[in-house]
């Protein structure tokens, strides 16, 4: 079936258009829905197969990134959301969306405690908003969204992306195979905390985590910002080298793989 995607917007979410476009291009049907339309009952989550909480600055990051939007959802439509994740459906939170998912306790949701805050995205070690391209390595075998990807080049753009978790929960994340992405060097070797490869000081180089089912993914980097070959940092060099080798670059960016995986899941 062609999945229908609910791309959430409102209160300062700002990546909804490109996120919706990425799903459309991957073959899904996207609808950008204001959170207030869910709250007012104008739209129902149950009619969608995928929920995407895009990046942005919901509520300006005031009171902590993702916190106010998580409160808005929790105070008004928590039931719908909890029902959604318990069904065979997919959820992705990118950047600010990851911060919202974490505050809602939808990831990592260890020990079956869906809805409990178990991790956080703290201020970057640099204490400054940072936009740069990073390399990610798929670390989990269970995550639906990362299937078939080994390394992914993507941009990050955030001020609060330092994944923070207790020792105990880190062990559980590792044991349960819930670490979806880790920051690495270009050759795939661990960033091991080294800046700028690990751009924010994230614990265990964690860039994204999934829930125990592998269907709910939260990640700081933005795969939807790499839909086109000319998005990639350094593409002009890549293009020139390819031309010398009498090759051409694919026009689609590799970030699309993430969205194609989601559509594939419903085939």
């Amino acid at each position, binding site marked *: 079936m062609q999945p229908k995607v609910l791309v959430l917007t*409102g*209160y*300062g979410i*700002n*990546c909804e*258009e*490109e996120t919706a*476009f*990425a799903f459309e291009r991957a073959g899904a049907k996207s609808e950008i829905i*204001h959170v*207030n*339309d869910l709250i007012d009952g104008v739209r129902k989550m149950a009619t969608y197969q995928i929920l995407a909480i895009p990046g*942005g*600055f919901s*509520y*300006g990051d*005031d*009171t*902590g990134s993702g*916190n*106010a939007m998580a*409160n*808005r959802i929790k*105070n*008004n439509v928590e039931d719908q959301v909890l029902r959604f994740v318990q069904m065979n459906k997919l959820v992705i939170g990118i950047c600010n969306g990851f911060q919202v998912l974490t505050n809602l306790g939808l990831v990592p949701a260890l020990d079956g405690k869906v809805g409990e*805050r*178990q*991790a*956080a995205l*703290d*201020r*970057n070690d*640099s*204490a*400054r*908003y*940072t*936009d740069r391209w990073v390399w990610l390595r798929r670390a989990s075998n269970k995550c639906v969204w990362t299937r078939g990807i080994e390394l992914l080049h993507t*941009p990050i*753009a955030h001020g609060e992306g330092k994944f*923070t*978790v*207790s020792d105990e929960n880190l062990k559980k994340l590792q044991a349960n195979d819930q670490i979806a992405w880790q920051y690495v060097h270009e050759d795939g070797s661990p960033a091991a905390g080294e800046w700028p490869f690990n751009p924010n*000081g994230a614990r265990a180089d964690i860039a994204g985590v999934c829930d125990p089912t592998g269907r709910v993914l939260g990640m700081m980097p*933005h795969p939807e*910002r790499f*839909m*086109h*070959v*000319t*998005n990639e940092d*350094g593409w*002009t*060099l890549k*293009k*020139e*080298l390819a*031309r*010398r080798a009498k090759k051409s670059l694919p*026009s689609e960016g590799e970030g699309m793989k993430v969205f194609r995986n989601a559509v594939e899941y419903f085939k």
Partner: protein
Amino acid sequence: MIHRIEIANHKKDSRAHALQSRLKEEGILTDDVAVVDTYLIEKEFSTKELVKIASALTNPILQRAVIDNFIAPKEFNFALEIGFLPGVTDNVGSTAKQIVEDLLKVSFGNDEGVYTSQVYFFKGALTREDVEKVGKLKANELIQRVTIKDFAAFQKDSGMGKAVPRVKLIDVKTITVNLNVSDEELVRIGKEGVKGVEGRRGPLALDLASLHAIRDYFKKEKRSPSDVELESLAQTWSEHCKHTIFANKMDRLEEGLYKGLIKRATNDIRAQKGKEDFCVSVFTDNAGGIVFDDDWVITDKAETHNSPSALDPFGGAVTGIVGVNRDALGFGMGAKPVINRYGFCFADPHKPNDLYRAKEKKNPSLPPRKIMDGVIEGVNAGGNRSGIPTPQGFMIFDDRYRGKPLVFVGTVGLIPRELAGKPSWKKGARPGDKIVMTGGRVGQDGIHGATFSSEAMDTGSPATAVQIGDPITQKKLSDAIVKEARDQGLYNSITDNGAGGLSCSVAEMARECGGCFVELDKVPLKYPSLEPWKIWISESQERMTLAVPPAKVDAFISLMARRGVEAAVIGEFRDNGRCTVTYKGYKVMDIDLAFLHDGAPGKNLRSLYHKPKRSDPDVAAPENLNDTLTSMLGRLNIAGQEFLSMQYDHEVQAGSVIKPLQGKGRVNGEATVVRPLLTSERAAVLSQGLHPGYSDIDTYWMAAASIDTAIRNAIAVGGNLDHMALMDNFCWCSSDEAQRLGELKSAVQACYDYATQYGTPFISGKDSMFNDFKGYDADGKPIKVSVPPTLLISSLSVIPDANKCVTLDPKVAGDLVYVLGATRKELGGSEYYVMQGVLGNTVPHVNAQRAQVLYRSLFQATQKELIASCMSVNLGGLGVALAKMVIAGELGLDIDLRAVSKEGIARDDHLLFSETQSRFIVTINLSKKELFEVLFGRDASLIGTVTSEPKLRITGLQGNPIVDIEIAALGDSYRKTFRSY
């Protein structure tokens, strides 16, 4: 009842780390720093409710909270609290209020609220003076309050206290102003403002002739003007709004500089282009618009926010960037903002402040570094939070920017060419349409912004002229307008509330239909009892004014409400030729619309341009050019600004093509490219050019070089001269002096000459004519600091295929290196001369006839994919360009200067550092040599090759090696200037 919730991190906050290292730079050593966030809640709540609130504001993984108690480290010497002054926008406080309302389903009354602050704790051997210094560093006393307590006092008081910054106003009535007074008193009213019971209300910036015109008008009306009327006229007639210097007759130029030269250039170009004319809507709207493709129009607008940024750098810059976003929203029926631009002119951040607004070192200006940090942070907050990519910008330095920095901000927008079958750029309020104000509420922030920026900055500069933006309120507004209301056809006209607030936006729209009627008591306010004149002219941010047909008012207001945006009907558009304003049923303004807009007396400006006689200096050639080149790379105007580029999101909206940093070595390029439509390969090329360093020698050539630079930079990455538009932003000084006006006229003449030669029309522009600081130096002597005459030219080019763009980094060893264009001995005002402490005289001239052939050939070459890398030669000439290329590509270059095409140059240093315009350095694949050389002919000279050895080697005119240096050494010098920023 006031409650205080304090929240702190379990572990040391990265903000505390950052502050500790920043203080170390300032020589304040601390053993430890801690930060606590506080929320003061003025409203009655039970303990149970407070626990719920605290929990909603706290992330337990990172933080803990206490209620009506304090958090403090066990040991500390001083606590410093920074909160806002009454009436200053507190975004976090407002979000916290929304969280509480949503959580407990309650609402806050007029005298209830949430206020935030931060408390910093310092441990170490510091004195109270040190902590006061920290307060000055972190806070701005115009908008923030600072409280310091030592350990003992903190313990004794059990924390920092519970004083809330609520605004308390007394109800002041509208007054009438008697203008039948002496000219002396009239001048005083113009300069210091209307005299109310509270004292003088701040500058009207009306000169005597204007006040006479107003007096004569009200004589005919047989009454005295009200304060509302006088303030309104002052706003509408201000230099900021009416651009009187560009509009008035100057010498024998009857039409004035704007109509006679700038607009004429565009008209002439459009006529010449005929069917190829790509202009859609120019000069008439909030922004200018050109064709993007068959279905879309792309718009552009650049503004300055200099005076507010001098007083409150953060607030000035954030309101600047979100303000210019509204110019996109206000284009036609509303364009979606898709790209931001910025540009900053600062004084050397390493130098201390030496300017005071009063004698005896009182009322000091902010130090250059503080202005720089605040402005950078302001555009960061505004651009990033709005979800608009901010790739294109620059930062340049001259100590004459220390009195007033220049803060340029711009926004590119995108709008369908047609909406519901009608041209999207046409709009018009109709008689009977309701006047709807939507977005933020009105407070006393930004009173007299327009009149204040039309004056030089001095002792009387008003604090209420500063404002803090709220990007999220605007984001909600922007999305609701351009993503919903516009396409549902809910309004007939829209404009931004910028300078002059409602008084300007409503009166401007009233021209579309011929009148307006406004009820000021219907305007939503931030706090009660704001006086009518303030409601009318306040520049509170994030507001648009719309003309909504009566039948659609409910639909519009309900849509906005569902998007969390406030909207209110505040009056009605009419066709009676009057601008009528009431407050609680009383008429406070009723004047002829024609007088309001066109009643200002015209002036005949006199200009005079006396060019000082200068000569080129006789400075000996340096012995070691390796060292010279290395020093040049570290100069403030040349060094890498990675820290700045990286903190502005340039990837959001997913259209990034050429980023601000290029190559593996991450060198700042001079142009950026964005694909604003995800479904299209078409792209927008943005660049900027300015050369204030040449103004002291000749403003004509300064302007010519600025235009050439903005165009050339765009061409270098793949821009198309035949689909390119320009914008002019003049930031002048002392524009009441004939000499300055002479310099201006000469620059504007160059704008006409070069825009028409290149066929690049101006589509929008703005001027700021009094960038002067008047005050005192450290010895109490009067001092005036004027910015160098500065003209920013911004270029916008549309190209058919993003995939053909080019970066500046050499890509493959063995490639050939060419210089395009000849080099002349043009070092006057150059970075090289300035480094040696001389100015010189031979400023670069521009030969547009020759250059445009080259620019068209280069566009051909990029379309045919002949070019591997291309660098626009800029400040620092060939030497700096070559060095930046090796740093970016991490490949070497082997260059022979003897092959460079040159005119009148005999010295290696002159050839390396001359700033002759219209030149590029390109590298190409050997296999493209023949095609390339045929295309460029004599414009191209083959000067060397790309090498795998990581070195820049240059052979001089005598055949001897003059530069031989490792890339790492060049890179280190390029990066070290701003490394710790």
